[in-house]
């Protein structure tokens, strides 16, 4: 036996990485959260402010400091040019966001949030964290999934698995309640709506079908209220300053979340130089959001149809995502399913819990030995072919992997050349349900050289493999020459090349978070500034003085003074925030 020290070291290193925790992250449109699998249970991790939820808001302050989470959320109003929210909607696109004259892609902004969560997890666990499970909406397409994975890489996390959000919620629920049966999970968060039909039996969590709408979420309900409010008051969005618009958004968000509360919802705002009083009634709310509610049913129908499970067999309807708290949503869903949806789970945290369970599964935790998860791909994947009818026109979609096939899935289709002496094949990969490729989502293209021959004489095998992450790999094999080209999808929009990824990493490395110990003070300051912009008169003056004083104390760097001033400021802010609506 050759027991060289090298082998020993390798073994040791392997053990280290095996033991290193994998964290599970819910990277939401509005809020993100993070958890780990520990001692046979999913545990959620508190962030630097002691909260379980970190708002997905990113800002820059003055120099090169990044602000993430609650602090940044307060600054949406006070520093609208340097703060951004809801960027998850831009994942997988080329759109960029400008913060203080610097441009960021949605992938980079998400990386900031991930990095902040990673640091929180490291503090909690007391060790470095390098691997993560990240949840994505089931209906996220391939480009959006790649972008999410890359965001993880930029943040220094190896993404071991992307898990679909409703699946994660079901996993958390199934393991928690140990209840067998078929259930429908509806997840409506800030920006997306997902439906999954899932069965749990004998430790097997089987997803039958998923469907969704990537543009239907709490933010759209808010947007509907804002549009209607503006129309009713003869205002144009362009007339308002960014601050005013943000204030309107915040007021109506509050109305939206409290619409069923017994107190009156009266708004008094100064917009474009006009004092506007508005009474937000339940009736008004209903008229604004009904068109959105109607859109809820299409994905539900599709998921049930694809799963080929009759409505009557659904034993429970699980609601996750903050927007499902709306009573009007619950009523509509109750009507559709003919039963009251259950709310055993905290709608905000279920997904992060599920991601943590998946992290435990991935780490092969012994407490999860009897649990297996199978998922599906929610889209049809295919390639562009010429008209099978013989007109010779290109642009037709040939499905290769049908939607809601179980993953991992791998299918081959043999295709042939269409012209004499054709030298090259361009394999275009699409995702979608339409018979014409132009109506589907373009995922990428592969160029393949073929030896010249008569039309139809050269054949090639096109293999699509859909992995557990919902990511696609494409292999092309030219049959006459045996040439094999593996999974190189080039020209895919919205994803970064290896070089771009490196550049992003470097660029972001130059930006720093504030030191942790200062974070609390910063949060307090930005909270104060936010309130300052809301109040007028005496309160405002007093607040201004207190904030200036606090800054002076901070500059003096005397620890006891700082603690004292912080306490004082905090009490005042708490009192003011308890504010008018209660």
């Amino acid at each position, binding site marked *: 036996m050759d027991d060289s020290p090298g082998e020993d070291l390798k073994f040791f290193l392997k053990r280290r990485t095996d033991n290193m925790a994998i964290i599970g992250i819910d990277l939401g449109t509005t809020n993100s959260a993070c958890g780990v699998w520990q001692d046979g249970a999913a545990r959620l991790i508190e962030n630097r402010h002691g909260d379980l939820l970190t708002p997905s*808001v990113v800002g820059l302050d003055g120099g090169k400091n990044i602000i993430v989470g609650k602090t940044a959320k307060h600054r*949406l109003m006070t520093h*609208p*040019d340097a*703060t*951004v*929210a*809801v960027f998850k*909607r*831009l994942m997988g*696109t*080329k*759109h*960029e*966001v*400008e*913060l203080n004259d610097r441009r960021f892609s949605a992938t980079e902004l998400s990386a900031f949030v991930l990095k902040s969560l990673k640091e929180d997890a490291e503090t909690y666990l007391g060790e470095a964290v390098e691997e993560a499970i990240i949840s994505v909406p089931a209906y996220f397409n391939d480009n959006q999934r790649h972008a999410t994975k890359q965001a993880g890489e930029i943040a220094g996390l190896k993404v071991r*698995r992307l898990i679909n959000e409703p699946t994660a919620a079901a996993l958390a629920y199934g393991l928690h309640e140990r209840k067998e049966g078929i259930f429908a999970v509806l997840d409506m968060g800030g920006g997306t709506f997902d439906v999954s039909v899932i069965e749990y*039996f*004998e*430790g*097997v969590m089987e997803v039958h079908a998923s469907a969704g709408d990537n*543009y239907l979420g709490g*933010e*759209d309900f808010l*947007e509907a209220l804002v549009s209607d409010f503006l*129309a009713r008051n003869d205002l144009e*969005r362009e007339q308002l300053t*960014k*601050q005013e*618009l*943000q204030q309107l*958004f915040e007021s109506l968000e509050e109305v939206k979340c409290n619409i069923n509360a017994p107190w009156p919802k009266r708004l008094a705002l100064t917009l474009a130089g006009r004092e506007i009083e508005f009474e937000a009634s339940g009736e008004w709310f209903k008229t604004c959001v*009904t*068109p959105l*509610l*109607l*859109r809820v*049913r*299409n994905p539900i*129908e*599709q998921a049930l149809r694809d799963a*080929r499970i009759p409505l009557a067999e659904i034993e429970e309807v699980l609601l996750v995502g903050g927007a499902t708290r709306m009573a009007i949503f619950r009523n*509509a869903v109750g*009507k*559709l399913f003919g039963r009251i949806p259950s709310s055993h789970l905290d709608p905000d945290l279920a997904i992060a819990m599920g991601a943590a369970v998946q992290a435990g599964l991935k780490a092969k935790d012994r407490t999860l*030995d*009897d649990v*297996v*998860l*199978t998922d599906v791909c929610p889209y049809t994947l295919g390639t562009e072919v010429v008209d099978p009818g013989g007109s010779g026109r290109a642009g037709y979609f040939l499905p290769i992997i049908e939607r809601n096939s*179980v*993953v*991992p*899935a791998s299918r081959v289709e043999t295709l042939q050349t269409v012209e004499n002496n054709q030298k090259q094949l361009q394999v275009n990969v699409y995702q979608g349900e*339409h018979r014409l490729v132009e*109506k589907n989502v373009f995922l990428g293209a592969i160029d393949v050289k073929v030896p010249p021959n008569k039309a139809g004489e050269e054949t090639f095998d096109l293999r699509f*493999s859909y*992995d*557990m992450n919902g990511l696609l790999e494409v292999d092309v094999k030219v049959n006459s020459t045996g040439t094999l080209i593996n999974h190189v999808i080039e020209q895919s929009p919205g994803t970064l090349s290896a070089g771009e990824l490196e550049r992003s990493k470097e660029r972001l490395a130059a930006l720093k978070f504030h030191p942790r110990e200062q974070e609390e003070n910063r949060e307090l300051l930005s909270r104060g500034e936010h309130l300052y912009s809301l109040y007028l008169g005496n309160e405002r003056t007093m607040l201004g003085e207190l904030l200036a004083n606090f800054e002076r104390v901070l500059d003096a760097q005397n620890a006891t003074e700082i603690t004292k001033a912080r306490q004082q400021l905090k009490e005042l802010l708490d009192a003011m925030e308890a504010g008018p609506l209660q």
Partner: protein
Amino acid sequence: MTAPWSVLEIAPTDDKREVKRAYARKLKQTRPDEDSVAFQQLHEAYKFACYLVENDLAIQDDTEDEALSGAGPEVLEALHSEPEEGVGDPQGQCQQDETPAATTAPPDFQYLLDHMDALLASKNDHYFVENWKAFEQDEHLLTEDFRTSLGDAVFARVIAHWKACEEQRNEPAMLRSAVLHYLDSIFGWSNRYYDLLYGYDYSAEDLEFLNDLKDYVPQQASKKFGVKGGAALHIEEKRKTGAALFDGEAESLPFVRGLAFVADVVLLALIVYPLDLLFGLSAQYDWPTVIFTLYVVLAPPCEASIWRATPGKRLLGLQALNKHRQRLSLTHAYLRAAVLWAMVGGVTYIDSLMPIDSLTVLFAVGVFGVYLQKSKGRFLNDAASFSLVSFARKPGP
């Protein structure tokens, strides 16, 4: 033992629970992320077994069992092709669905259809999405049967209306894509493209517009996003609407169009004047002919550009569009110009045959004015070339 039972390692059974238990047991040894090929086989065997159990095919006498194992692939085939049959035969489904629906009398939606007919018959009311919102006020809309049957009835009317408009070349009466999209968001037609194609008497051309509706939501959604948080959003084709001097009231359209034409003519005159000084054009041709010819030649490229307008129209916030309210192609723009040219040419020709006196001109101008008022600013050449001119900022809410 034959497939699928050999894969599941159980004897053939008609007890679904047993199948599930066997699958779960095997699955824990064949995890999907460890051996994907084995997992695929296992999963297929499981689905096949479920299929056999559900259709009472699992346990049979020996001869049939032999036949079944021999016919394994075909049965599998049948299993796979089943969903397509389901989709391809919506009428069969409809009949099944009708029985339970018939027992509980469907709520009445005739009043909605009447409302719709009134909108379609009206001149402008159908243009505004607001006017269609009566549909969503009906509580029953959340009931599937009601929605489907109402949706199909509405759809039939939309198609009939569409065809009638095409026939009469009555484009202004056509439903705007915003309205269609709105209706689609309620009734989900575009999700049922094939249902509609095979289940009813529609051709693929009839359903053409459904294809475009799907793209409409994401576009809208990504456009309006970005205000939140204020930070500037860079969208590749961020297009400013023209510097609008007029606020887009439909009544002012004819007047503004006239003004735009005058502006274009002045602009052309400014170009032609120095040329005239240099080459003495006016010795050979009269001014109006030169300028009008130049207008006909130069306007189309401008209208087919991202301005969608000649400089004069651009200045006054107008756009020339095709009937789908999209930018004109260059050929289409030239067609537009050619129609205009032919019309003016025709008038000139008549003039050369029998000189038109000033009284007739006055009379013609009067008739034209009334016509403009009636047609809401739509000129004859617009109608004849399937195009329209409107304010860049769409009128209405």
